[in-house]
């Protein structure tokens, strides 16, 4: 993975000093809260319902084992012993003290991490495929470009005060695990006619109260022009994005208002002016960064192992885990392993300090010291030999991390909701806990098959409900928590917006209603048809009937 050089250290170190100074000036009253707010936000510091929340960047979801150990230490020393992995591949701490946050940033800088631009109206952490560098499906490792974009977008003089937050996602595989079509800019790596590297460029995707799927504005952008083209897009957006109404300020609204063709035209016109200026990095720099992402030298191994078979024969959870929580690797005899942070009754994405430390140790032992965060709020060990799976799972299971539900109905994405978030209408976490308890039984879980439930506590959609096979949206109905059900969304290459099924349900009945939705699916499915395929085939009618007709 990428290693800081003296320049990266210098910049991140200066950032820590700057933030320490800003906190001091705020405490002394030299900065107003209004002025401090965007500055602290650009360092990931939010003011939540009960306390500050610090969001730490995990660029493109990649961590070394040492970095994960440091995150564990921060959880223990500065928080209540846990951290929360987010849908943007970051980690959040819910209880830091303002005066201690500069120290936390220093601890992060010591392991080449930061919280730069994890919130605020600026370019956020670039996200990507959690299996980058491991999956055979990719044409190239998207993290190379993730790192190039991370550097270019950090402390950008022109684009640090945008109309609204700005999110870029990149995938190296056609199979989209990064939800690129739901981002302000989505990049899909491609090969040009001569086999040269480049990108399809999409703009204007986003969730929130106006869900929009991104549109392609360029079929093929050659690799050497990546940054100048991004800069052209940002220029058009910075100047023309709406700044009067924050609900109309995302780029998706601008793209919709002027049309994707006109947006593309303006972007191309800007790009013509700037593409030969020194915005893009030299080829040697791409090569330098690429060298850090060289694939680990893994030996070709047998994809069969007696100890693995023996454990699978006697332990149903392990057997299911082999099926659900492993993903094929480029190198035969290896897999990428998903460690579920979604135990029955747990808080999606939460990990304790000791769990993080265990995973860091296991990463050293079994996965080249490499750990990933998925946007589905799980942790990944990307390079594990098949023959190590029995030992690895046994160690994970001992720490409550052996649950075999990756991609299944209890692998729920949920935002923090009303338990933490000051914008929330409804709680998300207790509902996720309730649902995962109801689907704790492995046989039932496997019978239902792949199904993505995504829960947001308000229309801001941090829980991605628009992209859920089953989306749940918390709304406020006359001061009471109420939950709407949406069906048929997808965050993948076949991205679709989930459709609202009908009026919402109270907190006491929503879990029953979700069970009813699933019962309808089990009833109508043909052979091994997955939930989304079944919904696409039959539409909402049978679900509506089951949920509303009886009433």
């Amino acid at each position: 993975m990428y290693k800081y050089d003296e320049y990266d250290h210098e910049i991140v170190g200066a950032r820590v000093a700057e933030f320490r100074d800003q906190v001091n000036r705020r405490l002394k009253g030299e900065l107003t809260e209004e002025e401090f707010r965007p500055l602290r936000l650009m360092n990931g510091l939010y003011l939540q319902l009960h306390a500050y929340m610090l969001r730490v960047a995990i660029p493109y979801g990649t961590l070394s084992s040492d970095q994960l150990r440091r995150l564990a230490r921060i959880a223990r020393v500065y928080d209540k012993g846990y951290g929360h992995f987010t849908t943007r591949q970051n980690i959040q701490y819910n209880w830091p003290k303002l005066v201690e946050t500069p120290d936390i940033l220093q601890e992060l800088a010591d392991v080449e991490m930061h919280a730069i631009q994890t919130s605020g109206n600026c370019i956020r952490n670039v996200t990507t495929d959690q299996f980058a560098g491991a999956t055979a499906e990719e044409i190239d490792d998207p993290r190379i470009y993730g790192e190039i974009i991370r550097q270019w977008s950090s402390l950008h003089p022109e684009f640090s005060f945008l109309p609204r937050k700005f999110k870029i996602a990149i995938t190296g595989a056609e199979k989209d695990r990064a939800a690129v079509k739901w981002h302000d800019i989505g990049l899909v790596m491609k090969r040009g006619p001569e086999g040269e590297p480049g990108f399809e460029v999409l703009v204007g995707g986003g969730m929130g109260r106006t869900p929009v799927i991104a549109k392609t504005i360029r079929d093929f952008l050659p690799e050497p022009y990546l940054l100048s083209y991004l800069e052209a897009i940002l220029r058009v957006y910075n100047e023309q994005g709406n700044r009067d109404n924050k609900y109309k300020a995302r780029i998706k609204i601008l793209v919709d208002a002027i049309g994707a063709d006109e947006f593309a035209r303006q972007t191309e016109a800007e790009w013509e002016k700037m593409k030969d200026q020194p915005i893009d990095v030299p080829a040697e720099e791409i090569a330098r960064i690429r060298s850090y992402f060289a694939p680990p030298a893994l030996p070709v191994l047998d994809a069969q192992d007696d100890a693995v078979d023996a454990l699978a024969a006697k332990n149903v959870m392990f057997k299911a885990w082999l099926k659900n929580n492993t993903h094929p690797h480029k190198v035969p005899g290896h897999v990428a392993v998903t460690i579920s942070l979604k135990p029955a009754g747990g808080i999606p994405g939460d990990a304790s300090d000791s769990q993080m430390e265990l995973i860091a140790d296991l990463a050293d032992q079994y996965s080249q010291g490499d750990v990933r965060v998925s946007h589905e709020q799980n942790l990944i060990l990307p390079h594990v030999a098949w023959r190590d799976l029995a030992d690895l799972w046994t160690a994970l299971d001992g720490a409550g991390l052996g649950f075999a539900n990756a991609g299944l109905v209890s692998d729920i994405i949920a935002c923090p909701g009303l338990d933490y978030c000051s914008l929330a209408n409804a709680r998300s976490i207790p509902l996720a806990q309730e649902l995962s308890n109801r689907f704790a039984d492995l046989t039932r879980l496997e019978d239902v098959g792949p199904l993505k439930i995504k829960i947001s506590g308000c229309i801001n959609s941090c829980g991605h409900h628009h992209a859920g096979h089953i989306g749940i949206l918390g709304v406020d109905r006359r001061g009471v928590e109420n939950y709407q059900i949406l069906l048929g969304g997808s965050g993948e290459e076949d991205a679709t917006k989930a459709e609202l099924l009908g009026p919402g349900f109270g907190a006491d009945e929503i879990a029953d209603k979700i069970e009813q939705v699933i019962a309808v699916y089990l009833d109508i499915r043909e052979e091994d048809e997955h939930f989304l395929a079944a919904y696409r085939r039959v539409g909402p009618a049978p679900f509506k009937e089951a949920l509303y007709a009886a009433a």
Partner: protein
Amino acid sequence: MPLLSLSGIHPTDWVEFADDQPVDEGAYAAVSAARLAEDGDTLFAAAGQVAAIIDGDADGDVLAPYIDRLAAIWINFKAFNDGRGFSLALRFKRDMGFKGEVRAIGKVIPDQAQFLARSGFDSVEVAEERVAAFETALSRYTSFYQCTINGDMSVAHRRHMRADKGAA
């Protein structure tokens, strides 16, 4: 209010004239972009030098007809978190080739000092009590991830210049 130089140039002293106020003969006159658009030729004839005052959210093209004659452009930030002023400075300096002084006025904060300098601003008007904070902020970073119009080279480029030298 004190003026700080961001680019090393010595900021010029100007007299600001309200839209309904006649411009003194030979004055270094700062006038609104709207007035300039209406009455540009008269102003240039009367004043010694002209500076245009334009809001950060305005369309920079209104100054295009005068870009070669203007001595300075003041960009007014109505809110510090409205980043259009940064793009506007670049429009003048990079797209339109403006060679004079670009000054930031209005609600900018010390923490933006280097963003201003690196977007092409030459000077900034600062409240007395914030001069020290601005000066600190101005030398905060010495390495950058972007090449910018003020001549800062990105570390992505610096890394390889150094490598070239090593190889030679």
